[in-house]
């Protein structure tokens, strides 16, 4: 179970602080991040410059937001493979409306994309929550279905930066208080979802469903409704990510975000969210996204040979997970020893 759900045992002041720090599930990933930035920064100090950090935050904003949404689904012991297609569908749809009907206000387009995302999420939710189709199969199906709708809708068309209003494109590159707007949006979503998962009954019930679905039913949790909500929330975030994608890259066709679902799931898993549900936090998932994009950026800055990059990327990913796992085990062992000692 998550460390966050355990109450801090009474103890001496200093040790309590130590406990709290070492028990944070995301410690491993934070250390991995620190190592990545430290090593890369030592080789090439420009990596730690303000502009570079800003770029990395911007790069990870979309994946981080998708990882937050995916966490909601994965903690319930489900998975949503269709998000990349939802991003593609909403991103293309939003760009098309902006290009063809400039009269529609940007806020309406954004809301429309989120709504479209919710509809897609609801379809997933109905299949998984109500029809009881295994999530892996159901969302694999909708992965193709949504992308197919996207293809049919686009018909080979591409929306270019010149077709979209400048005020919309500037959302993708503008900074507020020195931070990229897209990263701020992702941060706000992260804090809000993180708070809800931790403090609201609905949030805790998602963990309960993932820990033991049968027990959740016996405990009177409305499993069907909760799973439905999780998929819909994930769809909404994917819809928002679709608009962000269009604003950021400016060139949008039907293939937008193809294959990104694996990046997102990798980020979630690296962030310490158990793939079989029941534990992990959205903060970890967002850090995982930051780590993955950080690795890609670092490899580009370190002038690593392009042909070796993918392999190194994978190796670093495994290293991060192993580091995280080792730390988690050591902390667990240390805590067990201490509890035993305290009990005597």
């Amino acid at each position, binding site marked *: 179970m998550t460390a966050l759900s355990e109450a801090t045992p009474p103890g001496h002041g200093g040790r309590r602080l130590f406990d709290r720090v070492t028990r944070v599930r995301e410690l491993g990933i934070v250390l991995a991040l620190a190592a990545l930035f430290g090593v890369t920064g030592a080789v*090439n100090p*420009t*990596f730690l*410059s303000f*502009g*570079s950090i800003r*770029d990395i935050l911007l*790069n990870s904003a979309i994946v981080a937001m998708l990882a937050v949404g995916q966490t909601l689904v994965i903690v319930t012991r489900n998975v949503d493979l269709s998000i990349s297609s939802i991003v593609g569908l909403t991103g293309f749809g939003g760009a098309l409306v902006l290009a063809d009907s400039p009269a529609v206000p940007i806020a309406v387009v954004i809301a429309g994309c989120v709504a479209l995302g919710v509809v897609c999420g609801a379809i997933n939710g109905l299949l998984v929550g109500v029809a009881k189709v295994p999530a892996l199969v159901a969302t694999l199906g909708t992965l193709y279905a949504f992308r197919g709708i996207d*293809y049919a809708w*686009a*018909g*080979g*068309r*591409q929306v*270019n*930066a*010149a*077709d979209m209003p400048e005020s919309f494109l500037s959302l*993708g*590159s503008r900074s507020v208080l020195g931070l990229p707007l897209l990263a701020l949006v992702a941060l706000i979503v992260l804090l809000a979802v993180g708070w809800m998962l931790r403090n609201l009954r609905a949030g805790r019930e998602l963990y309960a469903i993932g820990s033991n679905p049968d027990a959740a039913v016996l405990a009177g949790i409305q499993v069907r409704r909760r799973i439905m909500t999780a998929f819909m929330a994930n769809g909404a975030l994917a819809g928002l990510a679709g608009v962000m994608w269009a604003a*950021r*890259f*400016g*060139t949008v*066709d*039907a*293939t*937008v975000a193809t294959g*990104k679902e694996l990046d997102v799931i990798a980020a979630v898993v690296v962030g310490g969210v158990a793939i079989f549900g029941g534990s992990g936090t959205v903060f970890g998932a967002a850090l995982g996204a930051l780590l993955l*994009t950080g690795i*890609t*950026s670092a*490899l*580009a*800055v*370190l*002038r690593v040979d*392009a*042909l070796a*990059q993918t392999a190194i990327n994978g190796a670093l990913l495994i290293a991060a997970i192993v580091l995280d796992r080792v730390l988690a085990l050591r902390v667990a062992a240390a805590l067990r020893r201490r509890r035993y000692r305290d009990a005597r």
Partner: protein
Amino acid sequence: MNTRAVASLVGTALLISACGGTTKSDVARQQSSAPSAASSSTANPNAPIKQGLKIAFLPKQVNNPYFTIADRGGSDAGKEFGAEVKEVGPSDANASSQVSYINTLVQQKQDAIVISANDPNAVVPALKQAMDAGIKVVSYDSDSGQDGRHLFINQAGAEDLGRTEVQLLAQQIGSKGKIAILSATPNATNQNTWIDFMKDELKKYPDMELVKVAYGNDDDQKSFTETQGLLRSYPDLKGIISPTTVGIAAAARYLSSSSYKGKVKLTGLGTPNQLRKFVKDGTIDGFELWSPGDLGYLAGYAAAALASGQITGAEGEKFKAGRLGEYTVGAKGEVLLGKPTVFTKDNVDEFDF
């Protein structure tokens, strides 16, 4: 053992049908288009283009804007000479995904197949079957193996493209400074050939230094990150050449919103619609491309000329391609579309593709 025996049988059968093409395939051709007399293997330059030809365009991938434009050029050509032109193809650009489409087109008894091969070798056996069935095969954009088609419509000589891109950038940066290349995938054949010519052309510019070839994998996000990486690791970079439409768009998008805008020059291959904004806001001074619509148009005419018996695909034969004028078949059955067009802010508005 059994399967191996079968495989070798099939192999020999293919060999026989390929080598002995004059006898066996001619019979097949006569059978499939029996009513017309113009199906002999000698070219008749004065033969009129037949009416009602069925021509199928098989791009690497449907839903790819580039091929949408190219194939529209093909159907425009078809309208001019009264043919029925259709576009079919896979939605993913896999090596193997085109084979089943070719087989279907053979069964439908098309007069000509115009294909952009995802993999030069994977499609050859299927295309040979098509040729044996009397179907004329024209490759465009990306060639198939030479024995799997009659003609290849080359959008632009690899040498032309590679050299002119370097010349374009040299003009923009005063032939001096560090430059980088942002390519597609590390094993993309087109791009690698161009890059070889770029390196050769760079020998003429002793003050220009190619510091890195980065690969954006034709992915927005990766191209974006690679551009950032180039600028971070080479702070004194003067210019970037991106010989891929995805890469140049992502690089332009990044440069236009960064402090490097206008200072680091960007050029390469892109479409006017995609880059219009960046040419106007000063991120890009000039870039180049062939006209994909003209490419499809020429491929359409070439297919019709083959199917009508005007040409057979031998070197030196000439055929007319509507508004583009007359073309001559070059060595290895190649027809060259022409020099690439350079787009700048003065002429970019004249193009819509």
